[in-house]
């Protein structure tokens, strides 16, 4: 049985269709990442799965339960960091962890959790005085007090410095190592590539691509390309004398490599052209290229924020 199962999920805010019929499932022990521009509907989706929001249509199951109807039972088994995590102003991280654990009827070891999220240096500072990254780390710690089977992390690394981000990654890897299911949203594509077994790219409330990063790259990407510095002369020569798919953008000429043959032909023809050339590289579409292609350049979806 998958840990999370979503089928035909829809959610409207007034006239705005925030989630527009999405379906996916996340296996037990899998790390699944939702990507998408601002306003794509990631938080809405994740909150519905956490049982914090009701849905309009579709079915959702988390650990075999309906999150909205069986929230009380489900919440004992899941851990959550809301986007932009905030807490009461006055407890210190240590007190917050003990308190939140007590609400679950659990005696937690605050030291262990603080160390785990690398917050032991700030354990006695009031929440209101913590830095943004420290707050986020506390959120991470709180989401773990009840030893959850499924962890939902909504933008857990937004606003963190690179080192702290890597620390969070470490925590997520460890969660995976312990066999927990993790669903996370992020705006950092490299984060999804680093951590996620599978990703789904959302735009305008729809899933536009889903699968492993390699699958998405090969399905929506252009494959390998040879990129070389050269002018109109080079571009014209290649177009006239080869069957290669060639494009030019200013001083950059891009040749699509459909197979190995293309690469050899391209190299030979560039040399034969006698034109000025340099800086030759071979590239393939990264997840980022695919992402931008799928959600439109500029990254922000129309109808979003």
């Amino acid at each position: 049985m998958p840990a999370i199962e979503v089928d035909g999920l829809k959610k409207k805010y007034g006239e705005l269709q925030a989630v527009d019929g999405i379906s996916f499932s996340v296996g037990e022990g899998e790390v699944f990442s939702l990507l998408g521009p601002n306003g794509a509907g990631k938080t809405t989706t994740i909150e519905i799965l956490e049982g914090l929001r009701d849905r309009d249509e579709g079915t959702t199951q988390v650990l075999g339960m309906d999150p909205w109807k069986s929230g009380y039972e489900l919440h004992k088994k899941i851990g959550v960091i809301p986007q932009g995590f905030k807490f009461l102003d006055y407890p210190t991280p240590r007190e917050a962890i003990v308190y939140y654990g007590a609400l679950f009827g659990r005696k937690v070891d605050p030291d262990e959790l603080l160390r785990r999220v690398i917050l032991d240096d700030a354990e006695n500072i009031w929440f209101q005085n913590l830095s943004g990254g420290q707050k986020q780390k506390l959120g991470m710690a709180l989401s773990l007090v009840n030893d959850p089977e499924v962890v939902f992390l909504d933008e857990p690394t937004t606003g963190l410095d690179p080192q702290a981000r890597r620390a969070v990654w470490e925590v997520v890897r460890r969660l995976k190592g312990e066999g927990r299911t993790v669903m996370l949203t992020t705006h950092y594509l490299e984060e999804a590539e680093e951590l996620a077994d599978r990703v789904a790219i959302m735009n305008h409330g729809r899933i536009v691509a889903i699968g492993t990063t390699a699958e998405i790259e090969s399905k929506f990407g252009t494959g390998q390309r040879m990129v070389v510095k050269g002018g109109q002369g080079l571009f014209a020569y290649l177009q006239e004398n080869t069957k290669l798919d060639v494009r030019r953008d200013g001083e950059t000429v891009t040749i699509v490599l459909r197979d190995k043959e293309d690469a050899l032909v391209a190299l030979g023809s560039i040399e034969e052209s006698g034109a000025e050339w340099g800086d030759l590289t071979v590239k393939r579409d990264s997840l980022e290229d695919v992402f931008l292609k799928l959600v439109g350049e500029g990254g922000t979806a129309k109808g979003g924020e």
Partner: protein
Amino acid sequence: MTADLKVYGRSNLRSKEGFFFTLVFPIILILLFGAIFSSGGISQTKVYVQNLDVGPIGSSFVSALNSTSNYCSSNSTSGLCLRPVPSDQNFTQFLTSNSASDGVVIPANFSAAYQAGDKVNVTVYGNPTSTTSAVVSGIVAVIVNGFNVHGATGVHSVGITSKTAVSSSYKYIDFLVPGLIGFAALTSPMFALVNISSTYRRDKVFKLLSLTPLTKTEWLLAKIIWYIGTTVVSFFLMTLVGVYAFGAHITLNWGIGMFLVLGPFFFVSLGMLVGTVSNSPEAASVVGNLVTFPMMFLSGTFFPVASMPKYLQTVAHVLPLYYMIEGLNDVMIYKNFGPAYFDAGLLLIISAVVFALAVKFFRWRED
């Protein structure tokens, strides 16, 4: 729930505003108002008169008393004021239920005995330790004397029986202490809860709490328990200041406890309910003030409701805080438990309703 109570309490003490409004502010108020008003005082004395006599002499005795007390107008705050008591009432009970101690009873056979020259006694009720009671007995003695001298038979037939009634005379500070306890029970939970209910929602703290097995009811109860605690503490502080700095007459008894529990119960629930009405903290605080301020001034916190104009008294009677302060007055000053139980019962019912509504309407999560 205990965990929530602990964290909230600690936060409340760490936050400067919370600490100030909960414990320091009421003390400042009592010092301020006590200092301003303790010299004057509300000293209009009501004298309850029951004339059981059907003959002419009883009436003339009442007229004689009346001529000494022309201060019965509603805007006067000093002097004697005669209040007739119907002859079918039990006089002592009547005194108690009006929280009064001064009274005169003219016996049924007064005219007959007086005209026959037989011995007959007028009964004067009073508190031996109170100055107003002394004034009343003095006046009655003078009148009795007059009746004896001018009596038909020349025999000194009229005497005075003195009886002790419990209530004493009251000073402004006596009313101020219960009033300010009511004030403390109103303001700190109201302001805190109105603020919490909107900021917790904005900061998604409610969402975080809803992800735990803690229920809304438990969460709200923890807040109620905390504010019962702070109200009890401010009660003792204010009583100490009232008694030692201004010589307030206050008796400690368990009846007070009812109100120290019910007050915070009501106002925490009300604050939460008011906070759910609006989404932004700013709007919530406006609505909160709209509810809080009229209640604060019209319920007898700073001035006894009885000294307010009639139409404001009518308004006061629909404000729950009025019943808390009225009840506190009854138990702390008059030791008059009957009406206090009524007030407490009323408060309990309203509080339970508001609590239920607050739990129903405030949402951890959204749909």
